[in-house]
C-alpha cells in the first residue's frame, strides 16, 4: 500500500486573437466569415492569419467566404470526457465555398444517436450551412454548428 495525493491544475489564461482574428470575430457578428489570401500560393485561408505558413510571406487581401460549404470529414463522440462537450456530439471539418482550407467545427441539426446515419448524412462532399446563434458575441461559438443544406 502506498499513499496517493490528489492535485489539480486550474490556471486561467487570456489568449490574444491577434489583429486578423479580431477582424474575423467582429465579422461573425454580421454573419460574415472572413479569410485572407496568400499572394504567393493564392490559397484563401480560414481562419485568417497574418502570414501564410507554407510560403512564409504576409497575407494581403481579405476575402469573404460563404457560410455554406462541403463536409471534409466527421466523427461522433459517444463518451464523456472531462471538460469536453456532453456526448453525443459530431466534430468535423467543413471547407467553406471560397476557402482553400477547412474549419474544425461541430456538425448538427440531425439525430446523432446512430453514427452510421450521421456519417451517411455528413459524408465527405455533403453540402452544409452554418446555423448562427441568435445573439452573436464575436466568438467562434457564434456558429452553433453546420447542418445539411437539404434536410
Amino acid at each position, binding site marked *: 500500500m*502506498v499513499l*496517493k495525493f490528489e*492535485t*489539480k*491544475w486550474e490556471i486561467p*489564461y487570456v*489568449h490574444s*486573437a491577434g489583429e486578423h*482574428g479580431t477582424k474575423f470575430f467582429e465579422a461573425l457578428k454580421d454573419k460574415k466569415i472572413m479569410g485572407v489570401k496568400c499572394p504567393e500560393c493564392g490559397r484563401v*485561408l480560414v*481562419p485568417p492569419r497574418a502570414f501564410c*505558413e*507554407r510560403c512564409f510571406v504576409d497575407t494581403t487581401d481579405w476575402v469573404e467566404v460563404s457560410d455554406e460549404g462541403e463536409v*471534409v*470529414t*466527421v*466523427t*461522433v*463522440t*459517444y*463518451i464523456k*470526457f*472531462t*471538460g*469536453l*462537450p456532453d456526448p453525443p*456530439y459530431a*466534430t*468535423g*471539418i467543413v*471547407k467553406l465555398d471560397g476557402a482553400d*482550407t*477547412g*474549419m*474544425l*467545427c*461541430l456538425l448538427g441539426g440531425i439525430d446523432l444517436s446512430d*453514427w*452510421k446515419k*450521421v*456519417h451517411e448524412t455528413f*459524408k*465527405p462532399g455533403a453540402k452544409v450551412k452554418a446555423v448562427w446563434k441568435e445573439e452573436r458575441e464575436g466568438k*467562434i*461559438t457564434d456558429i452553433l454548428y453546420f447542418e445539411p443544406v437539404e434536410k
Partner: protein
Amino acid sequence: MRRVAVVGVGQTKFRTRRDDKTHPELTYEAMNKALEHAGLDIKDIQAIAYGTMDPFDGIYLPERWDVTSGGIGKPFMKISTGGTTGMTTGLAAYEHVASGVFDIVMAVCTQRVGECVDAQPVLNTAVCPIYERYSGAGAISVAAIQATVHMHKYGTTEEDLAWVSVKDHKNALKNPNAHIKLDIGVEEVLNSPMVSSPLKLLECCPRSDGAVAVIFASEEVAKKIRDNPAWVIAETTISDDYYTGDRPDLSYWDTLAIAGRRLYRFAGVDDPKKDIDVAELYSPFTIQEVLELEALGFAKKGEGKDMAREGVTFVDGDMPTNPSGGVLCTNPIGATGLVRLAEASLQIMGEASNQIDNVEVSLAHAWGGTLQFHTLMLLSSKKKLKG
C-alpha cells in the same frame, strides 16, 4: 557525422498506474535497466537527453525532479514535441554523439499518463484555443476523422481496422512490459463500445505509466560495449500545419511520406517492403497503422487496410509491424516514441521479447501534435545497408 549505435535499452513495466514509484524512481528504474543492458555505469554517461510532456503528469518542469536520477552535474536537455517527444529525444541523443561532441549519451523519457485522471482535456488544449478547442477535438477524434475519410475513399471497413487491433493485442501477450493484455478476436473489437465513430474502445490506446532509456555510443566505443549493437543508418523528422483543417487530404499522411522518402534516400533503401524487416510504428489508433504503412511505402494508397486482415503485418507475415504490441496496447505518451526506438533496436540485437527471425533492418516511427510531427529512425545490424 560519426557512425553511432544503440548499445543499451531499458524499459519499465508499463501499467495503468505505477503507484510503487515516484516520477524520478521510474526514471531511475529505466536508466538502470539500460545501463545493465549495456554493461555501463552512470559515470560513463556523458550527457542526457530527456523527454516528457508536463501537463499529462501535472508537474511543471518534471525534469527538475527527474534530473536527480543520474543527471546532477551532467549536461542535460529536455525535449517536448507531443507524441514524437520520445523519438525526438532519441534523435537528440543520437545527434549529440554523431556530431562528435560526446561519445556516450543516454536518452530517457518518463510519462505518467495514468496519473492524469482524464487525458482528453489535456489533448484538447493542444488544438488552437481561439478557433478549435470548443469543438471537443482531441487525439481520438482527430484519428477518427482520418478513418472516416479513408473509409469513404477506399472502402476500408470496420473489420479491416479490427484486424489491426487483433494483431497488436496478440503481440502484446508476448511482451512482459506491455500494458494491455487481452486475448481477443475481431468480434470483440467490433462489439466494444463506440468512442469516436468509427473508432471503438479496442481500437484506442490506453493511458500508461512508465519510463524508457536508450544509450547511444560512437563507433569505437560501441564495438567495445557489445557485439550486437543496433547501428543507426538514418534519421529524420518533419513538421506540418497547425490547423487540422489546413491538411489537404486526411486519407494520406503526405508529410510522413515525404519524411519516409527522405529517410530512404539517406539510407539507400530502394524498396522499403523488401529492405526493411520489421517496423515499430506510432499507431495509438488502428487507422493510423494503415495510414503509416501506406505513407512509408509498405502498401500502395488505399491498400494498407488489407495488410492486417491478410496476415502480412503479423509476426509470421512479410512485414511484421508492432511486434511489441505497439502503442495500441501501451501508451505512456511522451515516452512512447522512445519505446518504438528501444523495440526496433532490440529486434536488431535479436533480443526482443517477440523477436522476428533474421532481422537486419528495422524502422522506428512516431507522430505527434495533432497529426503534425513525424520522426523516423532506421537501424541495422550492418554499419551501412549498401556496399
